[in-house]
């Protein structure tokens, strides 16, 4: 018990620094630097608006990661529900007073920058469910009430996000939440049942989709249906990536993006530009870098003593994985176009903020990996 107590004690600042995961930090830093170069390329080889803003955001949010890391993981455990509720409140606020842009109401103006609360929800939902399953007795995991509670934790934010409307982010939030249910030990058959139910009700769901969302699905199934309209983005993205070839066209030489054929090259299609300029080699290198990050997070989870930290790390690793897979599948023409940024690489403050907070909590878990949480 004594040993136990000693471990519960606060560790010194120096030890905290020592305990940081440097491989993860270096990988994230490397990714940030790469993202700056790519942003510079989207600006046509000049330091313009996007490059400047991206740099400013990185220089604020990267240190924020350390700030988050230096709070004890126990602190994050204690505040998980409150943070979740706060983000829910923000979502409610946005649904009433949010800024409207191109048909959806997702943002709130904070003078210094525009915040998208749904992005924060990506991390908050993992924290909330990780705490819930941390506290739940294993015997009760598959009880009706606990599953219902877990499902409502997922569906409340989803309802708000989907009504913005923002299908992409709600899918990402839902999958991050469901993965915690999976990790928490919900029976496999439940997943299978609900998957089958989902497939059966799919036509019904589709009938509820907005016309533009239906169009996206149709376009995904056949991008050449309307090459200058809805299919344009997928076709141009595939052309850009395919024409990159093995070595790529070279830095600042991606004609597809330079000549404005690529839509949304700063945000959702940032990988397209990267892949056009750096080719297959570069893309593989980027995937390896992401894999290292995911692997490090999983490793931190597996050495964590507390199940909260473990669940959060595993869940967050999976979330990062899902973001990457959804984004890449989209730009590679494997999935319909749903708005989903590529972590760190894409331009966008909220996404970067939530990603960095997530990394911060992971690092906090690393620093305090021996911390037990009652």
């Amino acid at each position, binding site marked *: 018990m004594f040993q136990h107590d000693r471990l519960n004690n606060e560790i010194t600042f120096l030890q905290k620094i020592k305990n940081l995961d440097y491989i993860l930090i270096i990988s994230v830093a490397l990714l940030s630097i790469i993202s700056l170069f790519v942003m510079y390329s989207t600006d046509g080889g000049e330091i313009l608006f996007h490059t400047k803003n991206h740099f400013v955001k990185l220089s604020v949010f990267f240190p924020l990661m350390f700030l988050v890391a230096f709070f004890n993981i126990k602190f994050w455990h204690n505040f998980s529900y409150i943070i979740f509720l706060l983000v829910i409140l923000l979502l409610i606020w946005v649904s009433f007073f949010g800024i409207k842009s191109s048909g959806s109401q997702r943002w709130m103006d904070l003078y210094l920058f525009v915040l998208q609360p749904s992005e924060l929800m990506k991390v908050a939902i993992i924290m909330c469910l990780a705490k819930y399953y941390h506290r739940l007795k294993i015997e009760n995991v598959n009880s009706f009430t606990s599953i219902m509670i877990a499902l409502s934790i997922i569906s409340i934010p989803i309802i708000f996000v989907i009504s913005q409307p923002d299908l992409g982010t709600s899918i990402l939030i839902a999958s991050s939440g469901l993965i915690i249910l999976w990790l928490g030990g919900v029976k496999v058959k439940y997943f299978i049942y609900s998957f089958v139910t989902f497939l059966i009700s799919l036509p019904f769901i589709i009938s509820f989709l907005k016309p533009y969302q239906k169009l996206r699905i149709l376009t995904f199934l056949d991008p050449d249906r309307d090459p200058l309209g809805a299919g344009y983005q997928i076709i141009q993205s595939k052309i850009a990536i395919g024409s990159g070839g093995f070595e790529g066209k070279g830095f600042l030489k991606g*004609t597809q993006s330079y000549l404005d*054929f690529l839509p949304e090259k700063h945000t959702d299609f940032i990988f397209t530009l990267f892949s056009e300029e750096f080719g*297959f080699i570069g893309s593989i290198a980027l995937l390896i870098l992401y894999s290292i990050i995911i692997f490090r997070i999983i490793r931190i989870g597996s050495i964590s003593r507390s199940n909260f930290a473990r669940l959060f790390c595993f869940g967050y690793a999976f979330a990062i994985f899902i973001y990457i897979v959804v984004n890449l599948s989209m730009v590679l023409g494997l999935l319909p176009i749903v708005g989903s940024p590529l972590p760190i690489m894409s331009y966008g403050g909220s996404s970067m903020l939530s990603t960095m907070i997530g990394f911060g909590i992971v690092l906090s878990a690393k620093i305090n990996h021996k911390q037990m949480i*009652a």
Partner: protein
Amino acid sequence: MIKSNSGIRKADVINRRMFIIGAAKIVVFAGIVARLFSLQINENKKYLTLSDKNRIREWKLPPTRGNIVDYFGNVIAGNLKVYQLHIIPEQVENFNYLLLRLKNLLELSDKKIKRINKLKAELKPWDSIIVSENLSWSQFVKINNYLYDLVGVKPVMTISRNYPFNETYTHVLGYVSQPNEQEILENEVVQERFVPGMKIGKLGLEKRLENHLIGTNAIQRYEVNAYGKRINQLEHQKGEQGLKIRLTVDTEIQKACGELLKGKAGSISVMDIYTGDIIAMYSSPSYNPNLFLFGISQDEWQLIRNNPLKPLVNKTLSGLYSPGSTIKPIVALSALENNVIDTKFKVKCTGKMELYGQTFHCWKEKGHGWVSLKNAMKQSCDTYFYEVARLLGVDRLNNTAEKFGLGKKVLGEYFNIEKKGLFPNTKWKKNNLGKGWVLGETLITGIGQGYIQSTPLQLCMMTAQIANGGYSIKPKIIVDNNPLSFEDAKQAMEKGLLYDKETKSFKDKKLFKDKKNIKIVQEAMFSSTNERFGTSYRSRIDDPRYQFAGKTGTAQVKRISKRERELDLELEQIPYKDRDHALYVAYGPYINPRYALSIIVEHGGSGSKTAAPIAKKLFKLIIDRHELRNKQSNFERITI
């Protein structure tokens, strides 16, 4: 500890489940890598092509037309540098101010300004608007002086068609101008190579030889952005100029024809009697084809269109005239060939001939007395030829006339405006007018009046075929790849053969039964010009080098009433429209003939007074230029 036990059990569940997802993650990442591989490695070529198709756009530039040169290599349809003025709207700060400045500098009309504004609204801001297609040098200099103040204005140098001899060749060459939609669709080559601002042949050889002259487009490749704006020029692929086409015509003679017919309506054709080369072919009055290049102004167009001498009509090819007495050599030849008459056959001319109560007048009221063929031809006695025609009959006459090219197109394959004329016979009248032939019609056909209609070029060819000894020739205006030299053509002809280009063999092209008959007609024509009382005696040249033989003709435009016949008015006293056409056909030099010509002056009065003197002036030049022309020829000798 229970709690902690539960925690450890839970950790086991979490770890196990993590392991399952970890495996799934690897599979999914592998799938993404496979997709990347298939796009970037397997299908790289396809997407690289698509990417180039995206970013590279080709701009076709107007092709450079081939030159047309005369026999001596002088350019008669060439290309000239012209200065144009373009505006690039996106570079202009204040469009209205700029237009105001240009309006003052170039004296643009309000209509033009309106058109520029309309174009600006239609085009993309980076597409240039052509303000002026052809700036004069002084305008170009003015613009360049104020260029600092005219931001967005671009003086451009380009190439345009040019006809250095102005109106001299209009009826041969035609002209080029901007095509309308139908003209583009009609010709596949034009359709393929069309670029806005390009000009195509509208008439004459320019139109007929369009596909040879047009040339290929130069192509400029630009890198463009997604909105079609040009970013970089990548490469320039030069186009090929169209083919150079050499005509058989001689500019000096053609120009002289123009001079001789100045102020008159009419036509002159000159032909090589052995090769069929057309040396000159002038229809008067002509007009300046250069006016059409940049769109003719309404005033100038009205001036040409309303000219009573009808400059737009190509009189050489589509003007139809009664040949008048110029037909008489054919009538005589036909009668000789059919053994209706011989040289001793005589007719007494009393100034008129009665037939079934109808009177047929000779041009000489007092009559010529007893005339033989030679005298009848010399003095152009109508009574003699009435009688000969009566004995011969129109069908036999028609037979000979058609052999010599009357009633058929001469250059049909080059000029679609050419008319074939008409040489009547009994069958024709039955079929077309539904009436039987009347003997009186035979009589007037015998002096080249009535239904008979011919083009000046037909008369020229007819004369050439009499002059060369009665052999068929195929007139041409373009120097072909394997022509026969003058000597070879002549030699072949003297053997009664004609070189056929298509089959590359010699063919019998004799038009006569007895060579003697041709000689008789030639002698008769000689006497008409070179002996006293001959109708064109006053236009003769005694120098044997230039001496020529010919036949005058005066074609009535209107039936002469009895009163008018009695009045015997001077030319000036008759209204222009009612005056006779003056005709003359001739060939020379009489010894070793080389060239034949036909001259028609519309409403020129009599052939001997108006048309024959023109031939006198022209023949000297034609013969003088023969040596030069021979030197130009660079033929392979063909052994016969």
